[in-house]
């Protein structure tokens, strides 16, 4: 396939995944920020949301006041924030339009329909009630679900599909890792206070941001423990947003690409090394080596994989 098409598909998938993640993070943080201070509700929450969205510097540069309304506006709608949900959807559509022929009708209609709907929402944004926002965030999740489902159900299993899956899982791993990076202090074992509730709601907010709140209980069958939250998001293969699970998929789809292209390359080797590292890690060793350091390294490795994929396939 055309290198440019592969590139567009890869980024299309990343933008859709990022829009979905942003919507979930905003929703989880709104819940948390609405709590009384004694339960962990804090204004600093919005700063950490900006950090996990990778938009903190961009936000500061606009001189907006750091409060809930402005952060949400910046992350959801701001045209001047290159990483806002609005811009993710628009960029996804621009990429989709350039590669119409590589998408199925269902995928295109999901993106184009979502884009048109978003324009209508933008135009009607006179009433900025909390209810409107909830509806918007639900809508964003809906769009990415329909798009993803469309891809899964209707795309041919060829390099177009594999490139877009690689993009999706690299982005998802990046999102989970950045969320952990911002919140890592909350997850350190010594933070556990017997009977303490201060961080409880913070942990649930992290889980909600990756839609794993219910999953936690199914996996561990016990009350929230910070190191188990870390375990779930980093190491558990059955958790679809865990780093391990993302890399299992990255490796699988890169292997498919290697097979059709008749060559294993740097990208495959790098991904397999990262995956191997995750697979052989236990949460205890991970904490011993330092959670923060581990996540920082992962984020760098993951970004490097993105570069290697471009070098190998996108000329």
């Amino acid at each position: 396939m055309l290198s440019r098409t592969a590139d567009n598909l890869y980024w299309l998938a990343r933008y859709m995944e990022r829009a979905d993640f942003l919507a979930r993070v905003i929703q989880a943080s709104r819940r948390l920020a609405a709590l009384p201070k004694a339960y962990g509700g804090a204004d600093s929450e919005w700063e950490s949301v900006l950090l996990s969205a990778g938009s903190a510097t961009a936000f500061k540069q606009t001189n907006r006041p750091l409060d809930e309304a402005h952060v949400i506006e910046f992350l959801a709608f701001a045209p001047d924030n290159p990483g806002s949900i609005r811009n993710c959807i628009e960029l996804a559509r621009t990429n989709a339009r350039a590669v119409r022929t590589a998408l199925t009708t269902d995928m295109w209609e999901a993106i184009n329909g979502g884009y048109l709907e978003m324009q209508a929402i933008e135009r009607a944004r006179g009433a900025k009630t909390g209810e409107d926002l909830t509806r918007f965030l639900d809508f964003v999740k809906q769009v990415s679900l329909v798009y993803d489902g469309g891809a899964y159900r209707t795309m041919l299993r060829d390099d177009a599909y594999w490139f877009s899956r690689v993009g999706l899982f690299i982005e998802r791993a990046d999102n989970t890792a950045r969320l952990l990076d911002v919140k890592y202090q909350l997850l350190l074992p010594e933070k556990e206070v017997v009977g303490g509730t201060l961080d409880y709601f913070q942990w649930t907010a992290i889980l909600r941001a990756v839609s794993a709140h219910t999953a936690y209980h199914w996996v561990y069958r016990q009350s929230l423990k910070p190191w188990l939250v870390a375990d779930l998001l980093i190491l558990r293969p059955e958790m679809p947003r865990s780093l391990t699970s993302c890399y299992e998929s990255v490796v699988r789809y890169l292997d498919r690409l290697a097979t059709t292209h008749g060559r294993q390359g740097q990208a495959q080797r790098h991904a397999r090394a990262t995956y191997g590292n995750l697979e052989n890690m236990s949460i205890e060793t991970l904490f011993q080596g330092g959670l923060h350091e581990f996540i920082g390294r992962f984020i760098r490795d993951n970004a490097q994989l993105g570069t290697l994929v471009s070098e190998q396939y996108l000329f």
Partner: protein
Amino acid sequence: MELNGAQFDEMSGTTGATRPPYEKLAQWLANTPLDFLSSRRAQAELLFRRIGITFAVYGTHESTERLIPFDILPRIIARAEWIQLEKGLIQRVRALNLFLADLYGAGEILKAGVVPSELVYRNPGFRPEMAGWRVPHNVYVQIAGIDIVRTADGFYVLEDNARTPSGVSYMLENREVMMRLFPDLFAMHKVAPIENYPDILLATLRSVAPPSASQDPEIVLLTPGQYNSAFYEHSFLADKLGVQLVEGRDLFVRDDMVYMRTTKGPKRVDVIYRRIDDEFLDPLAFRPDSALGVAGLMGAYNAGNVTLANAVGAGVADDKAIYTYIPDAVRFYLGEEPLLQNVPTWRCREKDALAYVLDHLPELVVKEVNGSGGYGMLVGPHATRAELDEFSKKLAERPDNFIAQPTLALSTCPISVAEGIAPRHVDLRPFVLQGAKDICVVPGGLTRVAMTEKSLIVNSSQGGGTKDTWVIDDVPAKA
């Protein structure tokens, strides 16, 4: 040739009595409540928007993507009428191809004095780079869009589009939308299908691959990119053809061969269905500032290693002054009388004609010879005094640059409007496909309609719309 001034309506002729091909539709309309039609209009709009059938308008700021207005009532042509028209179209496109091969070859028609040489050689559409060598299979116009108008006297050719005719995606999508909206109407009529157009186009493109290409030639569609007004059509066609949609930056030339950049490395390209104008194709041969094309493409083309469809230089046939000679070209190359007539045209470059045109400006339509898209034309009867004066001045300064035609009583066809149905002017663009051996027209074409009352301008860039076009089989006997 005299053009009958009477207004001809596709549905009710000149007399007001429903013409046979429209009888069933008229009955159906009589029994259909207005709000049903308006709900279908709304549905059609929704469908088009969701599918993303949009086009970009140059120079408008607020919305760069617009829908072409679509009218839900079909334009109907009886098979007998169509067969006549089809013969005329095939004859004309065969002549166009022979004409172009001659212009870039021996130039017999110029030597015989049928067409003035300076008209050709001074024409901006003429490409001296093409002179003296043959394109693969000697086909210059693989895809032609011939604009046809109808009057009370029959069909006339208004324009030839041999460069890069567009609009076929609307023809195909209009039909799909109509079939979704009005299954009952389709059950009542025997409508000739058009869905095989992409198959025929693919066969046409395969047939013109250069002799050096493999058995299974690699075909691509070259687009200027997603900001081009017809990008939707480019992606639509590439998808239906099952070929790669490429931009200039996806291609490169090495040793006079064209390759595309794929994830598996370079891949040889044999046929380029290009939707980029000549002057942007190759910065080395034409405009050096063009970023849309492929450096070295003309070298590969000259070496016979790639086929461009349509050929470079085919646009010279679109010139509106050259158009006036195409019926003569039919006689010259085929030894046949043209089955399709031109609209009578005054060549302003000729002294007598210019004098006549200047005297009768308020009755005439004046067009630039190289213009397209409805830009740069004067519709005399609708022009203000000031516009007429301004055009007289332009005409006197550069008569070569213009032709004039009578303001045609373009046929009208009913469209669905809020108050019911109303007549609007229409034209027709059938698409003719010329392969190495076969030539083919899918039944019908794109009917363009001037959505504004009394307007004669059907171009989508000027607010024109489209309709589905039906060629139907069973015409009931005339009562």
